[in-house]
């Protein structure tokens, strides 16, 4: 096979067996790779009703056919498993260099099964694979873990690991790679921790076989030109990273502030991408073969490392009412060290702040820690550490905002969809994005269909953010298209500049196939539907395709979105209809049959 290595590594942690399996070619063609292939393998192998933190769940690290190839941003992998946070299928994407290295070592995916009796890590050097003792690494933060593994295996090794948050089964735990890249969302790090698996070390000496080098060179040149000529991928993201969104989103009046109680943050300028670039940015930190290089590397006081991204700045900044960029950078640093998802971490602190504001959490619960009060910059750093270590009130925070608010009898104060924290855009002022939030197959998420692109940024064309007409159709196309990009092994940011035909051209050149752009998007629709089937079988029904009550009922108090709520119930029927699902939001037999499911 071209593009794919044709090999899957299956590691049973219970009996320590390590097996090589042939990749099912038909399955790979139908589900592409990454998110799609991983979900299909989960469907075939793991009962959706399983306890996500039990040995019966599996953790799959899955690359795409373009991962490790000479394509723009071709270095992505997906962590696919059942989420302990949402109970849905989880697939968390990450860049850096680990994914490409796994392909160079000759593997398309690693499937982890069972649970080790004591902490272990997997060492992969091409086809030589062994489980090693991780007793001395357990409890270590990411920098210590990575340093120790580099010392043992050389600094050319690419390392994926969890931090103490994953070990302690925090539902917000991420899987980290290359020190500060994160497969961040849905608690995938807790699944890894539940298996007593601390890390995966990979060194590869091979290369990915390409069907038509000349065609790849040509398609690569076309895509590179589009990326360079596009204002967002060619200039905006390289210059300011994602943080430049702070002012854009705030000026539009959709920057959630103080746990979504408001939608404009009057101190946004202090935490903006412009401020970050001026004060703390040291260099760019690009992923494998990335011409965009949106990654940032910052230094503040004795802290240095990757990030922070826009979503992180919002979560610890505006959502917590904090205007100290320095402390946001520190909170981001500790998330990376403990291995925690920055969006869910910041949003959970914001929920705790509202519980305290309303008198539901008492000051005594903070012990000797700082008050979790909107605007208190010290608190976001200290409580991020305690969340990661699971100490005191931090143990409650480590379960995420839904379970935190529920424990005080007010789950409605949790700004979550399917128990996963919403990211940095208030859907009361962005109609399509609200539908996308509500229907996302992994709960509250912005990158399952980034409607901000047309509704705010004007790409590929400008839509009025407050208009509802036509939006469900846009959401469906964005969701399907994104599912394919997530499966092929490229970064979603390429889609600001590239269209479906461009992805098909790269895929065909690498794999020796003849798919069209429309085929590429249809594969995404198939993936979306199989994810939905998994969720339905897991007991996550259409009743959870909703938004927090605040966003449906409480009008935005001030700013450019003043007076707005999200009219979800008016938009969902059209969305379901366009999906070919029944009025209740269940895929019909006809649609599933059409997609070969």
């Amino acid at each position: 096979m071209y593009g794919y290595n044709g090999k899957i590594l299956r590691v049973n942690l219970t009996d320590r067996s390590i097996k090589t399996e042939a990749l099912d070619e038909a399955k790979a063609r139908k589900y592409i790779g990454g998110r799609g292939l991983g979900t299909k393998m989960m469907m075939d192998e793991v009962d959706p009703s399983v306890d996500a933190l039990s040995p019966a769940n599996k953790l799959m690290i899955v690359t795409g056919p373009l991962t490790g190839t000479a394509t723009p941003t071709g270095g992505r992998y997906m962590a696919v498993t059942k989420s302990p946070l949402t109970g849905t299928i989880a697939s968390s994407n990450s860049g850096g260099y680990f994914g490409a290295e796994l392909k160079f070592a000759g593997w398309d995916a690693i499937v982890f099964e069972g649970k080790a009796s004591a902490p272990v890590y997997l060492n992969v050097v091409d086809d030589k694979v062994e489980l090693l003792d991780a007793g001395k690494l357990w409890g270590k933060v990411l920098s210590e873990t990575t340093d120790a593994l580099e010392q043992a295996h050389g600094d050319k090794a690419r390392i994926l690991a969890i931090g103490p948050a994953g070990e302690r089964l925090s539902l917000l735990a991420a899987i980290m790679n290359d020190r500060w890249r994160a497969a961040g969302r849905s608690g995938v790090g807790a699944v890894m921790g539940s298996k007593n698996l601390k890390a995966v070390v990979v060194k590869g000496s091979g290369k990915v076989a390409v069907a038509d080098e000349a065609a790849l060179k040509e398609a690569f040149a076309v895509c590179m030109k589009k990326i360079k000529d596009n204002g967002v991928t060619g200039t905006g993201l390289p210059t300011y990273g994602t943080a430049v969104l702070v002012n854009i989103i705030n000026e539009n009046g959709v920057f959630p502030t103080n746990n979504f109680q408001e939608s404009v943050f009057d101190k946004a300028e202090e935490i903006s991408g412009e401020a970050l670039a001026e004060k703390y940015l040291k260099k760019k930190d690009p992923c494998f073969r990335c011409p965009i290089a949106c990654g940032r590397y910052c230094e503040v006081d004795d802290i240095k490392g990757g990030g922070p991204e826009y979503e992180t700045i919002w979560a610890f900044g505006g959502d917590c009412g904090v205007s100290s960029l320095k402390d946001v950078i520190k909170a981001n640093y500790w998330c990376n060290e403990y291995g925690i998802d920055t969006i869910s971490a910041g949003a959970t602190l914001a929920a705790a702040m509202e519980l305290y504001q309303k008198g539901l959490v008492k000051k005594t619960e903070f012990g000797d820690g700082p008050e979790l009060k909107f605007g208190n910059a010290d608190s976001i750093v200290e409580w991020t550490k305690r969340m990661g270590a699971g100490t005191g009130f931090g143990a409650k925070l480590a379960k995420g905002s839904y379970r935190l608010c529920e424990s005080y009898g007010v789950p409605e104060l949790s700004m979550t969809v399917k128990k996963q924290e919403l990211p940095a855009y208030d859907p009361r002022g962005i109609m399509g994005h609200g539908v996308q939030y509500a229907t996302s197959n992994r709960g509250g998420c912005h990158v399952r269909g980034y409607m901000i692109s047309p509704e705010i940024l004007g790409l590929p064309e400008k839509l009025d953010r407050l208009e509802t007409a036509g939006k469900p159709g846009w959401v469906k196309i964005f969701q399907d298209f994104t599912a394919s990009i997530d499966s092929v092994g490229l970064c979603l940011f390429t889609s600001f500049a590239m269209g479906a035909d461009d992805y098909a051209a790269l895929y065909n050149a690498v794999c020796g196939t003849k798919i069209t752009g429309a085929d590429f998007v249809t594969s995404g629709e198939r993936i979306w539907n199989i994810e939905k089937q998994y969720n339905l079988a897991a007991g996550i029904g259409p009743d959870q395709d909703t938004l927090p009550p605040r966003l449906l009922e409480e009008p935005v108090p001030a700013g450019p979105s003043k007076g707005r709520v999200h009219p979800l119930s008016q938009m969902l029927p059209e969305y379901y209809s366009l999906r070919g699902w029944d009025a209740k939001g269940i895929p019909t037999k006809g649609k599933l049959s059409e997609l070969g499911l």
Partner: protein
Amino acid sequence: MTIEARLFATLREGRGKVLKVELGDGATVADLAGRLSIDRKDVAILLVGGRDARLDRPLSDGEIVSIFPPVGGG
């Protein structure tokens, strides 16, 4: 009339962040951009009072105009 112009990212270079600009009655956003020597191709996101606007939109005293060059992605 006085308009508040808020500039972002690279548009701040040589101009500043927030500017109070005096314009004659009937002036449009394009007139404001011209006064600030901002090339039309550098106007990617344009908001008046936080709502999408076009360059030919007439302005009223006290309005806030936010202008972004091509940037973004989260």
